[in-house]
């Protein structure tokens, strides 16, 4: 499989006005992200995640090491930039522009012809559920709405690599779910996704592989399933089993394993319960991911 991002011995030291080192934000980082995978970059505040992303995007210059995008391009190479989409942690948008103008502006930066830009803008506004407010200034939007505009601009060029910095921040649970669905669907259609998030459940839900950073260093790196797997514990889920049958099976398992067996009734997550109660179909401003992806395909 081709790698979309390859990072070798990456380091970043921030310096003060007199060029004295102030903080070593990233230390000797090595990562490879394959085409079509959803990769999660995790870490506490100040761990160097955003610095790493900004170096991948050419916004910061590495102190040492190399970053290779799409096999052979540097982060400042416009050919690489043309193939990626980026959603920053805070959607810094021009407040005087409307969502439509914002998307048309970013489309123009990709050199899209006017007709394509308009079509794409319309589709994305539909997708993020902002069609009804497409001509209102972004400065008057809530954080969540601005986030949707940010997400739409990241997809304006139908990117091959999508870099999402805290994509669900500021979104309501329905929006979060939709973003995760979108990420999954994009990955299915071959888009590589690199995301950071503080919400570990989000990462667990969608990421194929994760890397965990702390104080600028890589602490763990591998597939989500491998990293989270507890090799000493086996769990069975049997829906609709009676209490008597469950007790009997438990006894048998205890005899067989010669160890105590823990028995409980799994709860659904709060997110799943919320989504069950609040139907996405009833919300006009919700993401409409499926039709968008149909069109994209």
């Amino acid at each position, binding site marked *: 499989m081709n790698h979309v991002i390859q990072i070798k011995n990456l380091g*970043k030291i*921030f310096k003060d006005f007199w060029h004295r080192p102030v*903080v070593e*934000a990233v230390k000797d980082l090595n990562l490879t992200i394959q085409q079509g995978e959803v990769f999660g970059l995790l870490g506490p*505040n*100040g*761990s*160097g*995640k*955003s*610095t790493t992303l*900004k170096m991948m*995007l*050419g*916004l*910061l*210059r590495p102190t040492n090491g190399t970053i290779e995008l799409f096999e052979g391009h540097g982060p400042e190479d*416009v*050919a690489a*930039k*043309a193939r*990626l989409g*980026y959603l*920053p942690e*805070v959607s*810094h*948008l*021009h407040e*005087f*522009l409307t969502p439509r*103008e914002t998307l*048309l*502006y*970013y*489309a*123009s*930066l*990709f*050199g*899209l*012809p006017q007709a394509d830009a308009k079509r794409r803008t319309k589709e994305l506004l539909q997708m993020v559920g902002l069609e009804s407010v497409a001509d209102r200034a972004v400065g008057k939007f809530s954080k969540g709405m601005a986030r949707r505009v940010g997400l739409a*601009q990241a997809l304006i060029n139908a990117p091959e690599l999508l870099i999402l910095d805290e994509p669900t921040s500021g979104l309501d649970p329905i929006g979060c779910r939709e973003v995760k669905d979108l990420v999954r669907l994009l990955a299915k259609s071959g888009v590589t996704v690199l995301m950071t998030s503080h919400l570990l459940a989000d990462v667990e839900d969608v990421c194929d592989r994760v890397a965990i950073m702390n104080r600028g260093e890589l602490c763990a790196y591998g597939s989500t399933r491998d990293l989270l797997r507890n090799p000493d514990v086996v769990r069975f889920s049997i829906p609709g089993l009676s209490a008597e049958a469950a007790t009997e099976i438990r006894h048998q398992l205890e005899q067989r394993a010669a160890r105590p067996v823990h028995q409980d009734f799994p709860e659904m997550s709060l997110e799943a319960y919320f989504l069950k109660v609040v139907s996405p179909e009833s919300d006009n401003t919700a993401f409409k991911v499926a039709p968008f992806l149909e069109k994209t395909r």
Partner: protein
Amino acid sequence: MKILRRIFGIFLLALRASLRTKTVFALFLLMATTVLLLPAVVKGDGTPQGDCHILVLYTLGFSFALLCLSTLWAACALFAAEIDNQLIQLSATKPVRAFEFWLGKWFALLLLNAIALFAVYSAVYVQLRWKQRQSGWQESVQLVSRSVVHPLLPTPEEEAQETYLLLEKQKALPQGLSKAQVLRVLTTKAQERYTIVNPDESISWRFQLPRPVATNELITVRLRFDTEYSTRTQVSGVCRVAPAASQAPALEIPLDDFSLQEIEFDISCEAFQQTQDLSAINLSFTHTGNPAKASALMLRFRKDVVVLTQGGSFEANFLRSALVHWSVLALLAAFGLTLSACFSLPVAVFTSTILLLLVMIGTSVTEVVSVEDEKEWLKKPGILVSRGVSAVAHHALRIDPLESVINGERIENRALGEALLWNVLLSPACFGLLGILILRRRELAAGD
């Protein structure tokens, strides 16, 4: 094609940013107030020249100064504010090159300045024509465009070189000064040198006209002079004008009103009774005042004695003046954008304003600097900086278009071309290259 789309996108964004902010709205309001209220508030001396001065020099001059400052500060904000507010992070991750950013923003400023200048110049033009109709000015006196012809003389630099060689031959060169210093002083002296015409003395000049003047055209002679205030009523003289190529008798024009420091008179070329177009003329002036009572007349002959020939319409000249102003604004926009790429907004605005002030006073500083001043180590850095800034600004501000408009002097195509070449192409290209290099090197984001 993609490059053009990207540049157009950035251009459109910069335009929207300008037009949708209250600051720009306030600026347009201030300019409208200046253009409409200033001529009504400032009282002239009642003469057509006075009205023309107020409208052109004060109104247009003040509006242009406002535009200079606003262009400079807007340009300083275009990159600096985007970097400070992290807005540039999204744009910089798109496939846009630094020069596309720079050009898109610069073009937007060019268009905004063109619109603002068009509005101001149109308003002033309408007021000029309205005043002309109201006050019954003679059009030929005020709203004209005439080519300025200086007498055939060696340039100040040539004269300075000659004087230097003479002093060298006589071993009379001042001690302790370099050749460049001596030449600079001699050139300044040559530029400002007065010719003194005492009573009963004459002085003559030859003028090569830029194009053959037809027999039905008018030419104008203008003399500017200094004389002693108390005896100026006693000064009188005669000007003799004759075609240089023929033996035709000279026209004699008696002059007796030397109360103002300028005399201008028209001559119809028909008076020379020539069949051929006029290509060169000889002009002489004889002081005919009473030697006992009248004082001498002083003329800076390089500047003060000119022949003016018809040179297109006033409207075309007015447009040329607007183009010169637009070119200066283009240069300021380029300069501001480059500073904006280097510094944060407050630093860029401070630096640009200080440099603008230095440009304004730099020439005055270098003019009054004496050779002794140059030797003092304390004054040396200031002199060097002022000289450097005024040398750079010299090309940009070579023409004073408003002065030309109020004097009815045509801004020559060559001068306009030089202004456009220097201010809209060469200097912005240099500033642009510097700005682009800095943008490419600069980190556009902060860390976590």
